[in-house]
């Protein structure tokens, strides 16, 4: 157990203090969340380490249920007085809140699947260890006459949810991330990985890959906007496709803010698109229970192009008279639930084969600043970044200036020609996912920028 992570017994002890403080007010229905840990990040730019940080924190948040009312109060003061004050505060604001006729009693004790995602060595990675890996990566980029920028982070965290109905769930995880941008005079390349065990990261390989991309995209040419066949690397797929998963939510559909309104059970994407939410998948991370303490269930979100299942919090499930799926957020909240362990089924192609089978197209390493343009047609805009290449006659021939896209995800996932094996990928605009690279025809670029 990492030193900075509260053990389950410590959480149970703190919850005992929460209940003692609540009983003083005559309140017996209480829930507590304890979350936190330690996190360190070594940041480099201009071939030097320039920001190097570490933090340790734990917070407690408590939620009483009093006469159909609920509210939450949080603190990071875990001494006796801090706990008493946060319980006092939560009870006071709960009593002033309007009742919610749909509020359910607290979750009772549940069985959870077993996932092991904590590695002592990752939790105890030292500043010198991170610095040495960074120095080696910088050296590889500098050797090519390029400039490196990026991060190497390691950390350990825990999340515990306990309540007065006997629920006591606890989860810990370690996580390491390495990301690098290699910059040449008029081009750049990028690579990123994340893993629960830091030994699975390959900083030097990523540095060399980023440097190769920067080298190959020198003197970029400008392509006119229009529809192109694109080969999207996994990070580009996850950052773009990842934008639609909050819509696979019963509450979002009920609110009228989901693109799946009137589309569940109908063919929306191509037959080669199947998507799951699976917390237990080998390359996934995260707790086997949700913010309400419900065990996470595997969902078939899209089956051969047809949206099938959606996520249900307890409240959304009760309204729909179905079982909750284990995707609820801590209450009270407006959003309800969402899938967070996305696995997009891969295909039998590879990135090289996709490029090789493309007469004319664009290879995209990464996308940036993706924002929703149309919530129902699921049109998103954004930019390519750090490694955009022209493909001609089955080969990467040169770099191209970055392009702006305005692309409907419905259309894009109907135009997928080929998929690679799915890998754990990490970007900057969506949560980490297990996704394949995709070859997509008629991808819509609308503008070109100056670099």
């Amino acid at each position, binding site marked *: 157990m990492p030193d900075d992570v509260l053990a389950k017994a410590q959480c149970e002890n703190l919850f005992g203090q929460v209940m003692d403080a609540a009983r003083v007010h005559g309140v017996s229905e209480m829930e507590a969340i304890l979350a936190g840990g330690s996190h360190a*990040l*070594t*940041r480099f*730019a*201009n071939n*030097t*380490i*320039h*920001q*190097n*940080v*570490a*933090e*340790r924190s734990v*917070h407690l948040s408590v939620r009483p249920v009093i006469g159909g009312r*609920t*509210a939450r*109060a*949080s*603190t*990071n*003061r875990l001494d006796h007085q801090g706990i008493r004050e946060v319980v006092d505060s939560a009870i006071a*604001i709960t009593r*002033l809140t*309007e009742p919610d*006729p749909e509020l359910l009693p607290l979750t009772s004790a549940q069985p959870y699947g077993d996932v092991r995602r904590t590695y002592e060595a990752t939790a105890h990675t*030292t*500043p*010198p260890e991170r*610095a040495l890996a*960074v*120095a080696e990566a910088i050296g590889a980029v500098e050797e090519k006459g390029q*400039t490196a*920028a990026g*991060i190497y982070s390691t950390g350990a965290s825990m999340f515990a949810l306990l309540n007065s109905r006997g629920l006591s769930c606890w989860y810990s995880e370690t996580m390491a991330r390495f*990301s690098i*941008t290699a910059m040449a005079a008029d081009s750049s390349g*990028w690579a990123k990985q994340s893993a629960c065990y830091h030994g699975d990261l390959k900083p030097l390989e990523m540095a060399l890959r980023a440097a190769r991309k920067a080298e190959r995209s020198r003197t970029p040419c400008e392509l006119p906007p229009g529809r192109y066949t694109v080969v999207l690397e996994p990070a580009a797929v996850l950052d773009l496709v990842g934008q639609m998963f909050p819509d696979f939510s019963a509450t979002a559909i009920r609110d*009228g*803010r989901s693109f799946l*309104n009137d589309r569940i059970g109908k063919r929306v994407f191509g037959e080669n698109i199947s998507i799951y939410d699976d917390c237990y998948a080998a390359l996934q991370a995260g707790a086997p229970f949700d913010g309400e303490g419900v065990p996470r269930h595997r969902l078939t979100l899209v089956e051969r192009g047809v949206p099938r299942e959606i996520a249900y919090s307890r409240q959304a499930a009760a309204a729909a008279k179905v079982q909750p799926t284990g995707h609820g957020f801590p209450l*009270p*909240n*407006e959003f309800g639930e969402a899938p967070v362990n996305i696995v997009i089924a891969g295909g039998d192609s590879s990135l090289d084969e996709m490029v090789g089978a493309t007469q004319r197209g664009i290879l995209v390493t990464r996308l*940036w600043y*993706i*924002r*929703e*343009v*149309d919530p*129902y047609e699921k049109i998103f*805009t*954004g*930019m390519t970044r750090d490694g955009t290449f022209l493909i001609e006659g089955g080969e990467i021939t040169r770099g191209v200036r*970055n392009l*702006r896209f*305005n692309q409907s995800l419905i259309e894009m996932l109907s135009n997928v020609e080929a998929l690679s094996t799915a890998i754990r990928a990490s970007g900057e605009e969506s949560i980490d996912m297990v996704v394949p690279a995709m070859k997509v025809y008629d991808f819509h670029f609308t*503008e070109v*920028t*100056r670099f």
Partner: protein
Amino acid sequence: MKNWALQALDAVSRRGVAYADVRVVETRDREISTKNGKPGHVSSSESLGLGIRVLAHGCWGFAATDELTREGIDSAAALAMEIARAGTAAHKADVILAPEDKYEVVWVSPFGVDPFSIPIDQQLSTLLAVDTELRRQKDVSLAEASMHFEWRRQVFASTLGSLIDQTRCVSGTGFSALSYKDGEIQRRSYPNSFGGQYQVKGYELIDELKLLDHAPRVAEEAVALHSAAQCPEGEFDLILDSSQLGLQIHESIGHPIELDRVLGTEANYAGMSFLTLDQLGRLRYGSDLVNVVCDARLEHGPGLGTFAFDDEGVPAQGTDIIRHGEFAGYMTSRETAAQVGQPRSNGCMRADGWARLPLIRMTNVSLQPGNQTLEEVFDVDHAIYMETNRSWSIDDKRYNFQFGCEIGWEVRQGKRVRMLKNPSYSGISTEFWNSCAAIAGREHWTLWGVPNCGKGQPEQVMGTGHGASPARFGKVRIGSAYAG
């Protein structure tokens, strides 16, 4: 708090540092929201901790903890020193800081009514009244309203001898109506989208915004958009309301003038900037009408970037960024000012809490009001007028942008003649500001708060301020988001 700060400073000074500063930060916030006639989210939170930044062996080290015991603070101090030492493994040149004076100050932001003195049930009932009004309109599928309040006290101590105790009160509120109908989702918000308006004020902000008065119009427009014409595609004159212009300033001026981006230290995540050092004093960054300042001083207004001192102990300042269209200044820190040979930082280092290192962040980056009336801004044969942001995107060097708005109107001979749905516009930052043809005067100027600006690794979320009046731009590309 002062004792913890001095204790931490002593713990690192004993170990040998070229410079160190400590921030002890205590925050207390309250969030309330309603959704379709019910409470959506009612919560309060408090947080207390400290961050220690050291400059040792020519490198920075930073460690933060919420374990405010002698052992906890000493352990964080030791870790900050270890981290600085580790930085020598990939080290090119020692960090040098621009000089700064020593200050001993206690400062509290002005406020009329402490928002925490207003009972939650009263705040909820204000929001529920708005919610009821929004849902009177048939076809509003989702009514949402919210308030957010924060008190933040920070004690800053540095080896320069500074001891600065600052407290700020931030309030925010807004609401929106969403309508899903016939395979289309439309939304209208007030006073701004994505949470509304935020300022360094007390509860008086909520009263000033007169939420209930605007609810019927907002609900009506959300539904009316379904039957409005699609915004046309082409090059047209464009008129923007002040809230959308505030975000335009944020993205196409505020971020590019961050000197850390210019110098490459944000390259892996937030990106860099087209405003390379050779552009200063040379680049035409706007028409003659365009004057932009970066101003954290109270006299600029109660913006989210208003304070007395930044998070490395530099006093709030006002800096010309664009002067009559010419690019005139960056936002700096003590380190970056020294790197580019400036005598002093202009005070833009901010951290989003005790657990984070200060970075160069926008304070209040504002377009100064023009001298035209609103009628003169609209006085064109044909233009598209857009209000309230719906989406925003810009490339990682801040050249090419695209914005979508919630609602638009076609303007002919100075009058709004028809409502337009799904309006969007795009362009290149310098070309856009150079096309500025009219700016309305001070009476139409609003200092908007952007509460959710992300930057840094680990990411920090910061509130920034942007003052603007409605303005007109010539021949802007419109409608490309839906083209083809």
